């Protein structure tokens, strides 16, 4: 059924279709609509779930971890300062292998305080053990909530997943979304059946104190689950494509990359705008393409290497800064491509929620093409930033 809805609404419907059982919640813009919609579903009897209004985000994630350890399918949503406030508990959820799914409405993490899209909130959680993915439109937002539960609960993975959607650019934007039938989702996502749960009838210890004799092996085990996740993500993407007719490519997606000589790595909604830019440049005969980085964790090093093997220069879009030069995506990409002789240029844009226009994306391609032609360019560009030259 087609509905014209916001990204937040799409995410909430996704959670409902997954028949989530516990939703601990705390409001924060631009995520609030998600939990408000879910509260409505529960109130109207459309969703049989425990909706817990918590006193803080730290409590939200504590409750989420505990409910998951008790065997429930748990969903919540947060953003920015909220994600920062629950940071400690993110680290409790992942290594204990609790498959919570939490949507993050990407928003600048202050100070100075702001409410618009930037990735510096979720990037701070990149080593917490959560899988992270970034969506391009409201359809993908809904679909990826469903896929996230499949990935999270897969016995080869058992890790929490954080689908990120651009604050306001998706959360508060309406567009047509094809809402799957409940029966279809039910046959795609079976009930969560963990092996060990907190149950007085069968006592278990989850998350108890551990000395150094065990923690290193546990970290190694979690690192192994991240490796397994790569295969699981691809597999579930294919299964989803077969069932629902929408193929997102898995870890990465590509556009016009078959014969591209210059490519731009994008994330989130900038991918969407960049598709139109590529179409325009292609009409002028320029061989450009896009690699959409869908999953930031696990980081698709192998897939990226394969995707760029025939190109002459690569641009990397970053919507946050890692204070030692470029953005976090740029640094991950560079280390993934180590040994390949492709110039990699960083394009910082959209920070603090500044609009990323087609003109800026044009400029990103232009500068990357210069590098492809062997011209001298900088490593890092700040786009549409007063005092900078681009």
């Amino acid at each position, binding site marked *: 059924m087609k509905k014209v809805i916001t990204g937040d609404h799409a995410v909430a419907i996704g959670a409902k279709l997954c028949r989530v059982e516990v939703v601990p919640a705390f409001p924060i813009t631009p995520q609030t609509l998600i939990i408000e919609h879910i509260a409505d579903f529960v109130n109207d009897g459309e969703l049989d779930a425990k909706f817990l209004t918590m006193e803080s985000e730290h409590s939200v994630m504590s409750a989420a971890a505990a409910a998951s350890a008790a065997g429930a399918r748990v969903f919540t949503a947060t953003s920015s300062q909220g994600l920062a406030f629950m940071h400690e508990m993110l680290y409790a959820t992942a*290594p*204990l*292998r*609790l498959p919570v799914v939490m949507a993050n409405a990407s928003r600048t993490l202050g100070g100075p305080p702001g409410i618009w899209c930037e990735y510096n909130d979720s990037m701070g959680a990149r080593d917490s053990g959560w899988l992270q993915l970034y969506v391009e439109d409201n359809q993908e937002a809904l679909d990826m909530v469903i896929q996230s539960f499949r990935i999270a609960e897969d016995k080869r993975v*058992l890790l929490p997943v954080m689908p990120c959607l651009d604050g306001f650019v998706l959360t508060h934007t309406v567009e047509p979304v094809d809402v799957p039938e409940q029966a279809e989702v039910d046959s795609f996502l079976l009930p969560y059946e963990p*092996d*060990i749960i907190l149950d007085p009838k*069968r*006592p*278990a*210890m*989850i*998350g*108890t*104190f*551990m*000395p150094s*004799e*065990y923690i290193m*092996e*546990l970290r*190694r*085990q979690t690192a*192994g689950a991240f490796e397994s996740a790569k295969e699981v993500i691809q597999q579930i993407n294919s299964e989803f494509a077969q069932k629902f007719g929408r193929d997102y490519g898995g870890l990465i997606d590509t556009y016009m990359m078959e014969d591209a000589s210059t490519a731009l790595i994008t994330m989130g909604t900038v991918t969407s705008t960049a598709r139109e830019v590529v179409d325009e440049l292609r009409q002028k005969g320029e061989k450009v393409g896009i690699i959409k980085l869908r999953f930031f964790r696990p980081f698709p090093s192998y897939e990226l290497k394969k995707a760029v093997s025939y190109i002459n220069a690569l641009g990397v879009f970053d919507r946050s800064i890692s204070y030692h030069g470029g953005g976090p995506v740029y640094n991950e990409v560079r280390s993934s491509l180590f040994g390949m002789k492709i110039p990699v240029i960083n394009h910082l844009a959209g920070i603090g929620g500044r609009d990323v226009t087609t003109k800026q994306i044009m400029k990103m391609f232009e500068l990357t093409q210069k590098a492809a032609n062997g011209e001298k360019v900088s490593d890092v560009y700040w786009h549409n930033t007063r005092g900078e030259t681009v």
Partner: protein
Amino acid sequence: MAAQTLAEAAVNEGNYAVAFPFFGAERRGAPVLAFTRIDSKKIFSKTQVYAPDCVVVLDDSLLDTIDVVAGLKPQGMAIINSKEKPEDIDLGKIIKTATVNATSIALEILKAPITNTAILGAFAKATGIIRIESLEESIKEKFGEKLGAKVGERNALAARTAYERTITGKSRGVKKLEARKQWLPTHQEIPVGGALIEGKTDAGLIGPGSFIENKVSGWATYRPLRDRAKCTMCLLCWFYCPEGTIHRISDRGDLMTNYDYCKGCGVCANECPVDAIKMVRARA
């Protein structure tokens, strides 16, 4: 504190020294490790000590469960808080050994079974690595600063007394201590996320209920002795026992303490409103 005080005394003598503890989540009284390195030049190594020149044992009940001299250098020395003479102590090999009854000295002088300052006196006497005067100075300074000059003086006296009463000799080497078994799963074997249900391994139980194997009676310096005639069965001791070692025997309307798990903390005696519980020495 003993390791740190020793390091401080060594530094005051013009050496370089480092000291650090290693312990788990247990409370005071649980077995802990502490290390001191002394050298004439700066020490860079930040690892634990695996082949020491000297092993100091503050609780001789450990000798029954742990091979305390496993890594000791062949010419090394063991210093043990014990009422026994060195030749009556079996360490599984014949090595230079010094003993002193530091617990008695501590009870006598400090009125508490805290043996870390007394044992340092034995260390000074047995090894000659540090002068007793330097130790006395460091103890007065370190303990005095924290607990007042009087406590500092008394602790220095405990060290001096132990220094005078230390007996040196050689240990016996008869018994064979088996290395303690420990459950050490690989990252493939460890249950997902470290979640444990009741289980049994070659090294013993794991998961909920596994602490039943963790008998801690060896920690206790004192154990509670209840006078049934005075006891009113108010159950405050049962309520307050932090380890749950006091059990109600319902058919007799009585209480029983399980000494296997009693750490001798004395909370029960302290809480008893009719003074029916006395703390008595667990070992002489």
